[in-house]
């Protein structure tokens, strides 16, 4: 099929020979060079040397920089304290509760560990 198509494009005064093809004129060179030369050139330099304009990269939306909202609404009910046993033996107190909210506490994580393993002690 391909050979028949090529034959139809060649001059009839130069019949095709299956075993040998001789370059007889510049016209033959002009026919062959455009077919053969670009292939190795593309293989060697094409991917890197391709300077065809490419579409500009589409900017992906930036991740939000604000901290995720705190799950305050999902906070569990606090564990209460039971009624005391025995009379109070001390006078009035003024207590100040201080909570450190620094980033240095960032390693602390809520973990599901049985209550008895909390390591509490004075």
């Amino acid at each position: 099929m391909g050979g028949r198509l090529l034959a139809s494009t060649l001059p009839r005064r130069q019949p095709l020979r299956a075993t040998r093809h001789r370059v007889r004129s510049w016209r033959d060179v002009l026919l062959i060079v455009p077919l053969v030369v670009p292939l190795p050139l593309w293989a060697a330099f094409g991917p890197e040397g391709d300077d065809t304009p490419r579409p500009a990269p589409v900017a992906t939306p930036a991740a939000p920089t604000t901290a995720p909202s705190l799950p305050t609404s999902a906070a569990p009910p606090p564990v209460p304290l039971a009624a005391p046993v025995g009379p109070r033996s001390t006078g009035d107190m003024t207590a100040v509760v201080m909570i450190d909210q620094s980033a240095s506490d960032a390693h602390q994580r809520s973990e599901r560990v049985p209550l008895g393993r909390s390591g509490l002690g004075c």
Partner: protein
Amino acid sequence: MRTSDPNAFRSAEAGSAVDWLGAHGRSGDEVGVIVFSDEIRALDPVPVRGNEGRVKSALADRSNLGGGTPLGPAFDRAASMLGRRAAATPVVVLISDGVPNATFVSQRTAIEEAVRALPSGTRLHLIAMNGQRVFEPVRSHWESAGLAGIHLVDHLQAGAISSAMAAILSAETGQAVAVGAIPAGTP
């Protein structure tokens, strides 16, 4: 900045102690609040009975998360709160990993100076958040500072802060205080 306490155990269970004082404390008991990092937000001491909601709202202020641990300014503020009422026993409960990282002096010096700023006779309790053992390097500094108690919390979980608060209230009232029943649905 991600919160260190996504379930707000610290503020919620400190609030349990406030409820307890409101129900079982003396009419003269007062509670103040300091939440601090790079900024300090405070509620001056108020009679706890009848003001439980106000105190718990101050404890739940989470608008100041992140930053450093400036012990000095925070303790100076506590000292000013405690110094105005000589008749009552001053008590400070600090919930922290105990690492002062917003200071130009050594950690030992920062801790010593902070504790020294408190009025004489102040009973200081530290609830030490010891996840990943970060409290251990400064533990000796706190122990030598003369605290009334150090309460280790290795795993921040439901009931951990309440248990520490129960121990503190037992020490400060002479009563036996224990953790109540854990509510259903608590992780």
